[in-house]
């Protein structure tokens, strides 16, 4: 029974990881929830190897990951998009876990765009990106009062330049921990 349930959870996680994300990762978030951890501890060693390969190592398993993931504080975006890419799931989960455990800590999510197009519309786009990251964190247990957002639009580029490389580096949300 437990193996059957284990496989079902595993399949759900694989499907979730493969789905294109919109603004948030609700399914990916469930991979890291307590129910799954419970299932993990029940599995037999032989089955665990296969599962770990699919999902990647989780911070709770290795213990050394959180610090590295918490250093990943910049989320980059595709052009004209405010969807958080699946590749940021782990980092966001680490930030969410840290914030959920430390309810006195607060973050400010600073949204940015590349330089193209009109400035005030870009302020709106930058905010949309911050809000997408905010929702992703809140879905993983972070309190609303722990997160503030600000948008700088195109006004504070990380990289100057008018080429694809510069534009890519400027479409971002920065996670800033506040004292």
């Amino acid at each position, binding site marked *: 029974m437990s193996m059957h349930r284990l496989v079902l959870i595993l399949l759900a996680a694989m499907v979730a990881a493969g789905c294109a994300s919109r603004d948030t990762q609700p399914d990916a978030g469930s991979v890291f929830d307590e129910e799954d951890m419970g299932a993990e501890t029940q599995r037999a060693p032989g089955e665990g190897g296969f599962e770990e390969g699919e999902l990647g190592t989780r911070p709770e398993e290795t213990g050394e990951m959180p610090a590295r993931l918490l250093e990943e504080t910049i989320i980059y975006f595709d052009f*004209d998009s405010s969807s958080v890419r699946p590749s940021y799931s782990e980092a966001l989960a680490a930030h969410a876990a840290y914030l959920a455990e430390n309810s006195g800590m607060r973050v400010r999510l600073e949204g940015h765009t590349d*330089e*193209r*197009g*009109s*400035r*005030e*519309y870009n*302020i*709106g*786009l930058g*905010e*949309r990106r911050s*809000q997408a990251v*905010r929702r992703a964190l809140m879905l993983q247990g972070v309190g609303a009062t722990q997160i503030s*957002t*600000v*948008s*700088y639009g195109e*006004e*504070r580029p990380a990289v*100057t*330049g*008018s080429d694809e490389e510069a534009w890519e580096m400027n479409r971002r949300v920065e996670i800033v921990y506040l004292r």
Partner: protein
Amino acid sequence: MRKISTLLPLLAAIATGWAAPAWAELRIQITKGASEAVPIAVVPFGWEARGAEPPVDVAAVIAADLASSGRFAPMERKDMIGRPTQPEQVRLEDWRLLKTDVVVIGRVLPAESGRYELQFHVFDVYRNQPLMAYSLKAPADNLRGGAHRVADMIFERLTGIPGVFTTRIAYVTVEKSGDNSTYRLVVADADGANAVEIAESAEPLMSPAWSPDGRRLAYVSFEKKASAIYVQELRTGQRRIISSHPGINGAPAWSPDGQQMAVALSREEGNLDIYVITLDSNEMRRITRNPAIDTEPTWAPDGSALYFTSDRSGGPQTYYVRLDSENARRVTFEGSYNARPRVSPDGRSLAVVHNDRGNYRVALVDIRRGTVQVLSDGRQDESPDFAPNGSMIIYATRDAGRGVLAAVSTDGRVQQRIAATEGEVREPVWSPYSR
């Protein structure tokens, strides 16, 4: 307010309208003139006022103004035969030989209380007759403004269009130093002279907007680490915050009567919508209620409606909403991106930022017909604004990796490049006519 530049040296190259560079001075260059620019001779004005040296070369200012419109080609001084300053000294048959269509002569006389009297005469060379004879007074500290006013009058007499040579522009400059940037809001004369710093911050400044009486500027500042909208009185430097709600406070736009401000706010719900604030009571009215990004409002000239940017149909387009209704209707249909509208003074067209095959360009939209005419030819053109006579549009663009300003006539025939001597320039806004 600090005056950044004081006196400008006398202009040498009249035909190109160059001003001598100084800190953050704007330098205007005609990159495309009207092919039928009228040849005009503006003869150096006689100086009969106090002091050995005139503080301003009046004829040079007039010639540079007329040249900057792209419609006139002033004669160089070395080609002038004689320097008449009064009508009886003018022999039009001599000027006809130089193939100039118009001759302007004048002189500066002392008036009461240190003021100046500018007398000028304009002649039609081919019809061999005087066109204008006029006298106006200029204040003691603003002879240059008097010269601009003369240029306005000559321009209107010869083209039928009111001149904008006594107007001002406001713009944002950014100077980088290592990892830090200094943002400034600057006001200068329309020809780039007399640049004065209005505000300075280590955090972004953006979206300047002139009050209809030309006495105040609204702008967005991030100096409190979040955006807020300020209104600053130019004469005193005093300012107050008119909007600092949680979230975004952006895109201030004065109503034509100066009593209200349309703004874009996201507030606690995080969704950007248009609101109208009544300035003396701080009362606020919500105008759009839509999950899309609604921003960049601008008023129709009669004050009854707003045009604004919304991406409710997918990408940013321009919409129109009457203030007494909540039904917005889309106005732009050509192209995937038509944002940041500004209405022409006659209310018939919009200047927008338009995506033209991957390039962001300034385009003119005929409101009634919906047709789009691309006016600029850069790749990152933005922030268009009409001159108060509706004949020129100033905008921001990039040149060799630097932010510069440019201007184009609404018929597309005349182009100017306006560069700051240092740093980047962006977000130009044209003042109303001076009062």
